[in-house]
């Protein structure tokens, strides 16, 4: 593999972002904000509790979809950005596989999760392992709780192998097969065609 993951993380983790004079952060084709991870976890827990057994699956789907749309649009902005091209671009030998590996370097550098691809069947399947992620901070969830990683991972596969952006969303699905928040040593995410 051509991507030097540690170099990508080292360089891109140093990028500091703060609001402009309007308190806004327009970047990567979207508006960005940087909030405590606890806020996102807290609302997710509250809404799942409120949903109860009857609506639990629906609420889970909406939380995962929020991340998928985020991952699709912001992910596209990231992999087409100057920052990505300057750091990851020179390492790319095989498209889109190296771009995917590079994207998980960014994913890690930005603090979403310490995650990397452990298996990739181009256009068919991807397995991602996450050794730490903020969603694992949630105590005793009823089910695996990493909706953000699930959504973003399937979105990244859409960007790599579905129709060109913005027409390729929703062609993959992701299942979380291991979860730190459920006692596993790492989180594992399997992305396949929907």
């Amino acid at each position, binding site marked *: 593999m051509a991507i030097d993951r540690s170099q990508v993380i080292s360089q891109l*983790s140093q990028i500091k972002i*703060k609001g402009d004079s309007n308190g806004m952060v327009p970047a990567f084709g979207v508006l960005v*904000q940087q909030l405590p991870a606890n806020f996102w976890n807290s609302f997710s827990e509250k809404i799942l509790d409120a949903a109860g057994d009857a609506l639990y699956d629906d609420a889970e789907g909406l939380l995962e979809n929020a991340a998928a749309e*985020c991952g699709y649009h912001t992910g596209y902005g990231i992999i087409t950005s100057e920052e990505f091209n300057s750091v990851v671009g020179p390492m790319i030998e095989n498209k889109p596989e190296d771009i995917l590996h590079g994207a998980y370097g960014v994913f890690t550098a930005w603090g979403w999760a310490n995650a990397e691809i452990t298996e990739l069947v181009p256009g068919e399947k991807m397995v991602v392992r996450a050794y730490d992620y903020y969603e694992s901070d949630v105590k005793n969830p009823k089910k695996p709780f990493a909706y953000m990683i699930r959504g973003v991972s399937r979105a990244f596969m859409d960007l790599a192998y579905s129709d060109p952006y913005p027409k390729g969303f929703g062609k993959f699905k992701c299942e979380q097969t291991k979860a730190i928040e459920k006692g596993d040593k790492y989180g594992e995410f399997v992305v396949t065609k929907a």
Partner: protein
Amino acid sequence: MATTTKKSGFTSAGSKVSYQPEQKFDNKKMRHYMEGKTFVLHCHHYATLFTQLACDARDLGGTELLTEASCETFYEVLCDYFKKHKVSDTTDRIAIAEQYYGYVGMGTIEFNFGDKEGFAVMEHSHIDEGWKKKWGQKEEPVNFIGIGYIQAAWGAVFNKKPETCNVEETQSIVCGSSNSRFTINW
């Protein structure tokens, strides 16, 4: 700056403090920390879809839960900052609460607190402008995260229980207004 006629009350006017958080990246856990708390970058798609989810789940108290999560989170953030940096002056506390909001990319906010009531004005709002960018204008306000933040700021500034103040959004950027306005009562 908010274009509003200010009542007399507590504001940030005259304060010289500057919000300067300690930020670091832990290259073992691969996490970013701001003032010791894990923080993450997310986009307006994520924030507005969470908001939409709260709206869809209104019968379950979704919008109140989003406000509650915001209030609890930011109350702790602001109280911890005031304590660590020894920010005790009311004017300075308001200034920090205003600056933090912009620093993290949520927009601009100005507070004016009287004896029993107050107001807040946002000239820019990540939630409202993000919503318009994604879906266009909306007839009803959607900034439930902002309401929670205002409760948190009031509580942290005055050492009160944040949930004991009532905040109502009376004018919204997402509805087509040039700024968002909130009334605050306690």
